């Protein structure tokens, strides 16, 4: 079993098996025969006109799959949706990426795609908020905005001749600090209306990037552009280089313990869900966190075998309830 490198006792194994079988039974009613492997023929009604999409190719007049996955039909389009592949970008996706390189007038980001994505200097809002033409001096000061290894949140703009382009034009996009970055398989992140979640009761930002990078961190107030002048003197002082601070003063700026506890719980919940391969949405994550709290578990025990089995059982229950409610 992928990723399940935990020492499970015999009873735990049995419980886990039972929960997974329940999940299998739920889904097999829906679309059991739609999964294909490489070089499988896809059953198609050749009389209808259809379009061959991703993951398909033609061989001897038959439509054949080139990847392992599930066959999806949307109107006339037939394509194979892969499961464990790299991220497939779509315009408008919200993603989280890490800066690899600072190049002339652009930053190169790693977003778990087959190439590095490009964020142009002209695609971000300048720190002072003024809309103006980027000068040569701006180009020289690119590192003061984003450096190598910085984590950013951005939106996919589209494919250009030299690769994938991103944009970060709104105030909520930009550098992410004071938190941790998790990497989960992209196929378990569902595309929804909201990827940017502010959990008020914990004071935590949760960004579920469509590319599988998830950011869990302290909440940062997005400043209104109109009030930029008032904030300017404050922001100048906070821009002092962190390394120049002594150890004591650095300690004062650490995240408070309460918030940190919540960040770790949410991060562990997402880790457990990705280990089991369950889909990750904000509701599921909150449920897992509440489950952990109700069981009075230590935060790091959430990564242990007992909690893993509990999450699987809970998920099986939740989905069967959803199914009965829907019917």
């Amino acid at each position: 079993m992928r990723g399940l490198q935990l020492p499970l006792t015999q009873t735990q194994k049995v419980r886990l098996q039972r929960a997974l079988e329940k999940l299998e039974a739920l889904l097999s009613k829906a679309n059991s025969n739609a999964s294909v492997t490489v070089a499988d023929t896809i059953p198609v009604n050749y009389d209808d006109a259809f379009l061959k999409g991703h993951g398909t190719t033609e061989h001897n007049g038959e439509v054949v799959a080139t990847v392992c996955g599930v066959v999806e039909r949307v109107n006339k389009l037939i394509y194979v949706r892969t499961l464990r592949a790299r991220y497939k970008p779509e315009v408008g996706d919200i993603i989280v990426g890490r800066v690899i390189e600072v190049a002339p007038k652009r930053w190169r980001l790693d977003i778990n795609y087959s190439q590095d994505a490009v964020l142009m200097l002209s695609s971000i809002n300048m720190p002072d908020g003024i809309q103006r033409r980027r000068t040569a001096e701006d180009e020289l000061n690119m590192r003061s905005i984003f450096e190598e290894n910085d984590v950013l949140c951005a939106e996919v703009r589209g494919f250009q001749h030299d690769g994938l382009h991103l944009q970060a034009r709104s105030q909520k996009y930009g550098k992410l600090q004071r938190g941790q970055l998790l990497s989960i398989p992209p196929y378990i992140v569902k595309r929804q209306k909201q990827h940017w979640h502010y959990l008020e009761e914990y004071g935590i930002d949760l960004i579920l990037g469509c590319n599988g990078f998830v950011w869990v961190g302290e909440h940062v107030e997005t400043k209104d552009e109109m009030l930029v002048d008032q904030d300017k003197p404050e922001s100048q002082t906070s821009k002092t280089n962190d390394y120049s601070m002594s150890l004591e003063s650095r300690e004062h700026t650490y995240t408070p313990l309460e918030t940190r506890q919540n960040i770790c719980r949410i991060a562990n919940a997402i880790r457990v869900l990705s280990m089991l391969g369950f889909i990750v949405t904000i509701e599921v994550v909150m449920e897992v966190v509440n489950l952990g709290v109700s069981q009075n578990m230590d935060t790091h025990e959430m990564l242990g075998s007992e909690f893993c089995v509990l999450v699987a059982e809970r998920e099986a229950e939740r989905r069967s309830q959803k199914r009965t409610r829907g019917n």
Partner: protein
Amino acid sequence: MEYVSPEGLRIDGRRPMEMRKLQAEIGVVAKADGSAVFEMGNTKVIAAVYGPREVQNRSQQLSDQALVRCEYSMANFSTGDRMRKPKGDRRSTEISLVIRQTMEACILTQLMPRSQIDIYVQVLQADGGTRSACINAATLALADAGIPMRDFVTSCSAGYLNSTPLLDLNYVEDSAGGPDVTVGILPKLDKVTLLQMDAKLPLDIFENVMQLAVEGCKAIADYIREVLSENTKQLEYRRGL
């Protein structure tokens, strides 16, 4: 030495046309995009695929297709006598090249221009047929990584000892000095991508031996297809909707 007893049994008790026990597991290395462990009897191999990702060495970037790289290494403890150098010796370089060329033939590289696919194969236990086990493991790992392929590549070896064609030689039979034919095929497209042989064999017997190896490859292809479809189903129902 007698490799095939008069009753028709080989040294390890198999029949001449019988293959060793196959076992495969997907998803062993969590960090890799795709990974698999493939066992043929006592031969055990891990393959890990990283990619498609950005090309690390700009000068090697290909503007219209993906760059496929492969490295084969044997663990020190894999063979009966301990090996001194796990990688970099000539045999490893040759096998790396062979695996790369075989996999490149089946990957649809045009769909991923300017990217790089790395295939790393590590032999944990060697008991004959390592080349075939490596190719089978690499196929599984590539399918696990979701890289588009024309077809699987499966590979099997066959030999000719004591006037009998034998399928899937183990180490003892391999070192007997008889011919060893390794075949890699694309089962659905019915094409041969890899054919290697050492020692000498009359042409008509060669046809028989090669046919036997192709049959073995087809049997492995059925097994691999089963493993992959089981894996896909599992991932799908766990993910839910």
